[in-house]
């Protein structure tokens, strides 16, 4: 009997699923070597079928998306119970990713923005309610948590695979590895490891030339003309997250002429990704008086978003004060 495989999609955009499909024929290896038991985006399955499985009966679960509501949380706990290996797959599951930026606002504001701002066509100002009595009985929709959480804040995670989404060649490599492990040809990495990544940061894979950096002004890449295609982007004054972001993507964005935005998350052993970027950007500022420094820092209009774009929910502070303060 083939080992069982599952993949789940919690609070996320679906890009991770596409990245898996982007492995092309490699996807056939999954089918060849695994019995896919649960993959809502690819096949029909019911939660109750999973609930009925024996604990630990799924060998490998790729869990993408973060925990936004009680449904996400329920399935995360369920899949944890049923799976031998639970992989936090993609930036959302690993560190909260873009959905995690919602932690900058209290839930009430998020709902309000979704249902009652000028871009929403909601003439009667109707808000959803989490439970409602209808003649057929009480209806429930999932309830939002105060803040979004990455997977590891809810259940124990065996492996992490960052990226928004993880690069397909990295996914392919991981599939190869697991297939080998199943065949007894390779060993699993130690529990808790981050897999499908490099061991340094994006600069390591970036072909651009770099010098000792002294920045007199931060700017946006669209405001420089022309951008030097061979010189370090940070040296050109654009806050590039590459120096603090884990390698593994082949420096895809800098190679394409854009700054790294940090989707692969922190390097090995780093406790807080944003702190690493704070210190990286401030280290290259060429000024000594508070006024001068502040003037240069004005070139980073949204510092919190800049350093925590993908990592806010997984950071030490996790959320904006208002998000947890206001119930």
């Amino acid at each position: 009997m083939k080992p069982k495989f599952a993949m789940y999609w919690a609070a996320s955009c679906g890009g991770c699923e596409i990245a898996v499909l982007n492995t092309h024929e490699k996807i056939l290896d999954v089918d060849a070597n695994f019995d896919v038991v649960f993959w809502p985006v690819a096949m029909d399955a019911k939660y109750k079928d999973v609930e009925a499985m024996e604990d630990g009966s799924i060998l490998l679960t790729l869990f993408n998306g973060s925990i936004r509501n009680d449904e996400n949380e329920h399935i995360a706990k369920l899949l944890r119970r049923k799976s031998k290996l639970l992989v936090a797959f993609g930036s959302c599951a690993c560190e909260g990713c873009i959905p995690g930026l919602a932690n900058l606002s209290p839930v009430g504001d998020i709902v309000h923005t979704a249902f009652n701002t000028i871009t929403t066509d909601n003439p009667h100002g109707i808000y959803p309610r989490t439970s409602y009595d209808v003649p057929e009985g009480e209806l429930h929709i999932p309830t939002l948590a105060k803040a979004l959480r990455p997977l590891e804040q809810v259940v124990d995670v065996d492996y992490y695979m960052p990226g928004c989404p993880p690069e397909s060649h990295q996914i392919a490599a991981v599939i190869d590895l697991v297939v080998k492990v199943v065949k007894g040809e390779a060993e699993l990495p130690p529990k808790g490891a981050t897999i499908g990544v490099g061991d340094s940061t994006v600069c390591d894979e970036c072909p651009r030339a770099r010098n000792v950096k002294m920045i007199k002004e931060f700017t946006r890449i669209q405001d420089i003309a022309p951008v030097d295609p061979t010189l370090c982007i940070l040296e050109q004054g654009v806050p590039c997250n590459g120096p603090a972001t884990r390698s593994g993507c082949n420096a895809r964005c800098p190679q394409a002429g854009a700054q790294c935005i940090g989707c692969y998350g922190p390097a090995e052993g780093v406790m807080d990704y944003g702190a690493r970027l704070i210190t990286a950007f401030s280290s290259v500022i060429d000024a000594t008086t508070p006024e001068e420094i502040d003037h240069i820092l004005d070139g980073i209009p949204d510092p919190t978003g800049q350093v925590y774009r993908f990592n806010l929910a997984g950071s030490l502070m996790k959320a904006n004060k208002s998000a947890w303060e206001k119930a």
Partner: protein
Amino acid sequence: MSDQKQERVGVYVCHCGTNIAGTVDVVDVANWAAEKLKHQGVIIAREYKFMCSSLGQELIEKDIKELGLTRVVVAACSPHLHEKTFRTAAKNAGLNPYLVELASIREQVSWVHTDKVVATAKSKAVVSGAVSRVIENRALDEIKVPINPNTLIVGGGVAGIQSALEIANAGFHVYLVEREPSIGGHMAQFDKTFPTLDCSACILTPRMVEAGTHPNITLLTWSEVTNVAGYVGNFHVTIKKKARFVNEELCTGCGICQEKCPKKVIDDVYEAGLGYRKTVYTPFAQAVPNFPVMDKENCTYFIKGTCKACEKFCPTNAIDFAQQDQMLNIDVGNIILATGYDLFDARRVSNYGYGRLPNVFTSLEFERLSNAAGPTSGNIVLRDGKTMPKSVGIIHCVGSRDKNFNNYCSTICCMQGLKFAHLVHERTGATVYNFYIDMRTAYKAYDEFYQRVLEEGTLFVRGKVAEVTDAARNDREKGKLIIQCEDTLAGKQRRIPVDMVILSSGLQPRKDAKEVGKLFGISCSMDGWFTEKHPKLDPVATMTEGIYIVGCAQGPKDIPSSVAQGAAASARVLDKILQKEVSLEPIKASINKEACSGCRICNGLCPFNAIAFIADDMVSDINPALCQGCGTCVAACPAGAISGTGFSDAQIMAQIDGLLLKNLEIGNY
């Protein structure tokens, strides 16, 4: 904390007599640590009256041996006081000294707080922090380096000369570097010294000659230090020996070149702007060395290409217009900075009119005016060069003890003002007024001198002078300088017309003190004076090992104090030389090359140039010999690839958690 092996931690809480125990319930702290920190590995917690006593140390040593302690926390005084003591005790018992942490519950708790409950609670937090941290400490080995027996002394004033002679006489080599053409410093400009009124030149010249001829002293005048690298015991120093345009081998110091030179310029340095010198000159007759230097900026030959009068007349062909600046590289083990002071620029006090009103003089100008070798041959006259003043006002505290300029007391100005009063009185018979805020005549025989000047009939007005002006209000004031001040003893405003005003200007740090400090890696205080290691107990050492400061570079002081400091620093240097080697703290940063991405963000951060970029491997690397252990790069590495010993992330994170009493129930004290 490693999972495999729990550390065995001993906690020792010191009473320090009643210093700690008077405010902190030390027994409670020890019991609490034994119980609440057990899960962290604390297996024993004791309190003792004086942990630093030999009995206290033995207690720790015994526990290390008998209980097999792998970590020790001593809750006592500041690590700056007794860290070494307890590290040595641990070492004696066979435990690596760096596995000991001091938790300061005296300086940081018992001495600064009063509420016993609060102080006890805070002590627990501090102990908890230290326990968490010590578990993350790693065994380190001290780094031993040999000491180069040569010494560099920067500045050839009386303090530097004293230092040089002490070390040279002890048999070790000294490089004495002086920026000016001659050693001697400010003291060589003075006529008389207070309070003994002995002739400044008479007592200084023999010392200068001794320094100039001593076989163990290499005298480098007209020279400046341009670069300093290395660390205690092993400094590499680059010195620029400026071109003199006079061949020192050939010159006999006969002085003919100086005599024949047709061009006179104002001498801003030695004559304090009050007299002239030639463009090829020795600053004064007793200069050491007595070879002249050429002032390239003013020399007619260098400006117009013709003249060369000096060359024509030099009997030994010593003039060499082709001479170039020379760069010398020397290795020394210790450095003494005796770079002295600048006079406060009295023009800044615009209401005293210096620079506008001709007959307002500064103290240094007056020194030259009263000096027999000065521009007026010692005649005290007005700026017209001939009129003797009938009345003179001496203003104290010019630029000192004044919020607008310098807050500090310049120490010497009171005595200097009294000396001036005496000299004016003696040589001109003029009426002398001294305007002072407070009369400060501390030290031996100083106040007696004040009494003497009082008896000579000098008039003293206590009050800060508001203004010196030549705007007369009546005929009595016409043509005079009017000193407007409040006489605080008489309780009234006074306008006192005089012929001459002498400003007893304060002392200031050298204009380039900050840069010089940077060059040698030492810091300046807010005022700009070099900072000593300890204001009372270590006044000549600095925070940088192997660098000492003496004389006015450290702060305003008189000649006896400067000489005493010069000698004191030499004793410290000799101590180092005789020890032959020195151990350095093993606090260093290092880069994990696997994790380094070569982003080069750390490259610009190290002021000691310890970080180099290896282009072939595209990684950065740290030279441990140059690293001073500040940890800036550790904190800056965006990849977390740099780590530091002694102050690692793990240690500090653990201490933060410990201080916040994470996972402990002791309440919000």
